């Protein structure tokens, strides 16, 4: 999954959270998925940052 795809899915989940406030049945599931995606994006970002910095140090 790409960073862009992950962000798009997070946005989609947030939209559903805003619009379907009383859908408690899938709340946990949606929050868990969004949190997982946010963590994935953080990892990708840190990795990219590290690589960019290494390139500049060379």
């Amino acid at each position: 999954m790409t960073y862009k795809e992950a962000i798009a899915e997070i946005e989609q989940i947030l939209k559903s959270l805003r619009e379907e406030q009383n859908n408690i049945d899938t709340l946990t599931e949606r929050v868990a998925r969004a949190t997982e995606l946010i963590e994935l994006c953080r990892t990708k970002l840190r990795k990219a940052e590290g690589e960019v910095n290494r390139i500049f140090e060379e």
Partner: protein
Amino acid sequence: MPNSQYITLAQLQGRIAIALADALPLPVWVVAEVADLKINASGHCYIEFIEKNEKTGTTEAQARATIWRSQVMSTIGRFEQQCGQRLAKGMKILFKATVQHHAVYGLSLQIQEIDAAHTIGDMERRRQQTIEQLQREGVWDMNRTLDMPLVVQRVAIVSSATAAGYRDFMKEMERSPYAIRTELFEATMQGEHCDESIVEALYAIVERAEEFDAVVIIRGGGSTGDLECYNSYLLASTVAQLPLPVLTGIGHDKDTSVTDMVAHTPLKTPTAVAAWLDHRAAEFDGALEYRAIALRDLCRQATHAALLRLEQLSADMRHLVERTMQGEAQRLDGIATLVENFAPERIFRLGYAIARKEGKALQSVESVAVGDNIEVALADGTIESRITKIIKS
């Protein structure tokens, strides 16, 4: 033929000399072109003058002239100082001379003075003619409008290998930290026909034009004198039409030569040319460094912005979840209150009782009759009772 009817050659020469002295007793001002010039071992200067027909080029007059050693400095020296030019072949000069006839050496002119202003004017006129011709032919701007590469790394040099100017140039180049490759195309840089020699070197460069970024023409290193060939139409026209940009460091302090005027980048001295090349490389290097920093900053900004967005999304989500939970909790509370309102305890507390017949709560007097047994439930127990009377309301 009687003896009295002829004269000796010496007598003839003597008569010519006398006649000449009578005809031209005082010095005269004469304009002529220098066809040849020699200073012999004893320091006397011999000049061969010529006058050509301007249209046909045929010789119309010719004469020898002498400047005695004692006068070389005061005439030629002064002339050269005023003109900034060597007295050389091809130059037109205005001079004051006496005319003499020698019995052995024939006619000769003794130069007393040379008028530098006339030669300067003549050179300036020819210079202007060259400029106008180059402009008319549309080649004037050609070299100047070529693109100079961002970094000039492969340089063809036209110079004499032994010139001080070339040494100055190479010394300055060695100080540069940049790898600028030079190749020398040797030429005679001053004196007669030096324009032809330089043009020959330029042609040799043009044959390998794709191997070079630019051409440098250098000369000088303190030597003053004959710069007239840098005003030559042949040289200026070749430089103007060269397919590579030309840098000049001809090293003069007076007028700019026509060659400088048509060159892409005219500079004063060979050292200045070397410094220019180094500076151009340094400028490019600096621009690269600047771009690298800008790129790094952009990357950092991008990752920083992405991180901020991610944090924002995370916070948004937490907020939304909290709101959802809170909303649902409130709704549940409301429902709970509603439900509680219907609890029997509340009914008993308010002083109501529930009447049941056979376990079913009574809602109307129509469902019972006198004599029926019913139970009346209260908070703390049940009353068994019989109906004795029914009053309909």
